[in-house]
């Protein structure tokens, strides 16, 4: 939702980044204010997931130009774990399995680490158990997922729910959901979307990275951006997603070329 008195959460200017020496992001501009929901769409290889990982601080990506301010601070001065503690959250496209580590243990360590950073109360295992079970109801997750190893043997849908559960626990300022809809059936998509909608408020912001308009029926974006060749080439409202659904991406690229030619 767009609010009058919103604050700027994320300000990206001219961001370029490479992986293995290949330039993926090429001068990207992007601004997010509190309360807003943004969708970034675009064809495969346009740099959507790279953008998400660069924001989270994945070491495989090298930032070569540009700046990113997160709540007014230089994001690149923070290590990945510091970004997370400051409130940057990435729901992974492919959540990692961690054999031998109980989900409950992992969730509590993560929760307490972030709480400590914010000067808030940490929870002991019993208190945390009550707390996390309450959050799991939101996503209709069975408590048995607490005892299983992190993501190990989880179905695609279960992994994605576990990601959103972590978002619910950590209460981030900026949540980037990288193709959270992929691999979800209709029921799971609805449950996950409802969960995200309940977590959205006027103080945080959500960036959805997705291929498909389908997700946006459930989580309605305030802005839809089209990404191509490492830049955002068009921005519109939720109707742009519907237009992309029916017409594909090519026309956006052609229009962008034409605009650039006339400048």
């Amino acid at each position: 939702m767009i609010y009058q008195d919103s604050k700027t959460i994320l300000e990206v200017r001219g961001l370029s980044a490479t992986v293995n020496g290949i330039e993926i992001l090429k001068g990207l501009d992007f601004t997010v204010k509190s309360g807003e929901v943004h969708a970034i769409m675009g064809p495969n290889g346009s740099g959507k997931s790279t953008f998400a990982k660069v924001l989270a601080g994945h070491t495989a990506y090298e930032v070569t130009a540009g700046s990113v301010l997160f709540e007014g601070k230089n994001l690149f001065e923070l290590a990945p774990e510091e970004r997370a503690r400051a409130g940057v959250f990435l729901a992974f496209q492919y959540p990692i399995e961690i054999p031998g580590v109980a989900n409950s243990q992992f969730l509590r360590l993560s929760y307490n680490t972030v709480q400590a950073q914010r000067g808030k109360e940490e929870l002991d295992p019993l208190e945390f158990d009550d707390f996390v079970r309450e959050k799991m109801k939101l996503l209709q997750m069975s408590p048995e997922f607490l005892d299983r190893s992190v993501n190990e043997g989880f179905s695609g849908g279960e992994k994605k729910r576990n990601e959103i559960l972590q978002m619910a626990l950590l209460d981030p300022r900026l949540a980037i959901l990288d193709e959270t809809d992929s691999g979800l059936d209709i029921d799971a998509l609805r449950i996950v979307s409802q969960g995200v909608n309940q977590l959205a408020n006027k103080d945080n912001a959500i960036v959805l990275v997705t291929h498909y308009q389908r997700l946006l029926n459930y989580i309605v974006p305030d802005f839809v951006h089209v990404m191509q060749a490492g830049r955002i080439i068009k921005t519109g409202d939720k109707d742009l997603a519907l237009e992309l659904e029916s017409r594909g991406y090519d026309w956006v690229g052609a229009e962008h070329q034409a605009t650039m030619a006339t400048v």
Partner: protein
Amino acid sequence: MSEVLQNFVDQPYKHGFVTDIESDVAPKGLDEGTIRMISAKKNEPEWLLEFRLKSYQAWLKMEEPAWANVHYPKIDLQAISYYAAPKQKPKLNSMDEVDPELLRTFEKLGVPLHERMALAGVAVDVVFDSVSVATTYKAKLAEVGIIFCSMSEAVLEHPELVQKYLGTVVPTGDNFYAALNSAVFTDGSFCYIPKGVKCPMELSTYFRINTEETGQFERTLIIAEEGASVSYLEGCTAPAFSSNQLHAAVVELVALDNADIKYSTVQNWYAGDENGVGGVYNFVTKRGMAKGVNSRISWTQVETGSAVTWKYPSVILRGDNSVGEFYSVAVTNHLQQADTGTKMIHLGKNTRSTIVSKGISAGRSNNSYRGLVRIAPTAAGARNYSQCDSMLIGDQSGANTFPYIQVRNNTAQVEHEASTSKIGEDQLFYFAQRGVDAEAAVSMIINGFCKDVFKQLPMEFAVEATQLLGLKLEGSVG
């Protein structure tokens, strides 16, 4: 390997100091004269000298084993000293007479020798180089008939027990290093639990190599009579020398009917530096005989030190319904090499064995599990379950599994599971994205990986083992 992971694996060894203490060190080299000298120094009875000489003759005809997946320069067995002992009064009447320098050494290592300061409920025998220097809680244990003392003392005070059992589980000519040990062993722990007695406290031996260019050849013998039970733990450290020290121990366990022996090891010998210079060669033969019906022998080992480890704590399941267990965590880093595992020899009916092995390899190290499960024709209804998991840290370490399974009774059930995993950048990034730094992440992953083994350790030592692994694999990040 990334910088983050690299930092974990560069961790100084905390026990690398040398104690400046006057020692009585034998000249280097080994011949019959050396053996007679050791035997004479210890005032041993004639039968033991014969045992040693017989072993020496057997050893002369043996070849050093080459089948293990470890590589090291040939050890010149004539270039080491076979006896080193801190000079002290011939006989100590109380703990107060122990050389204060020695007491300080063990305090520094976290092994309190003063009984009043000792860990509640743990009796400790301390072996420094070749000799036992102190045993705590002896009197209290004697009240219930338990004998817990150094091997040297047992030979003199309880010769009939030593003679009855020594070499019955690991024969003198069993293998190259066991034969060498049988010829030259200097000290170790002896423990006898009489019929029906449950040992009221943990028994523990702490081994320390202090002198450069010595070998440590300790000999441990534990006997649990019918219905007896005992939990025993050994810990080991050594100073950091640029030369290699040889440690060739033999441990024998005997469990009679309904007896239960639990033997836990936290091995942290000096492992050499990051270029593989120095470190202990740990060539150890450990074997238990589950001799009686319903007896149980359980090995738990946490192996973090040594330049080269060659060790297979085993159980011979002779009694019907007897149980053998092996729980192992072996961690190698830098250029360490470990070839370790177990042998479960099923002879009796309905015998059961469990093997849980966790290998963690970091740096450029090489970590192998080697295990034998043999079901004899007599072992009707025998069962074995084996689980061998390897974890790699970084991309230059190696992990291998060599399981040998020989089943000669068709009513037996044998299961073997194995897995290999890796602590990767992506796992650490996942933790980081949830606010957790790499040190805490590695610690959680490793402890999760090892938890099936750690839960077998006595409580105090589980904590120690967890911390030891932390020290071994974590460092200052960044």
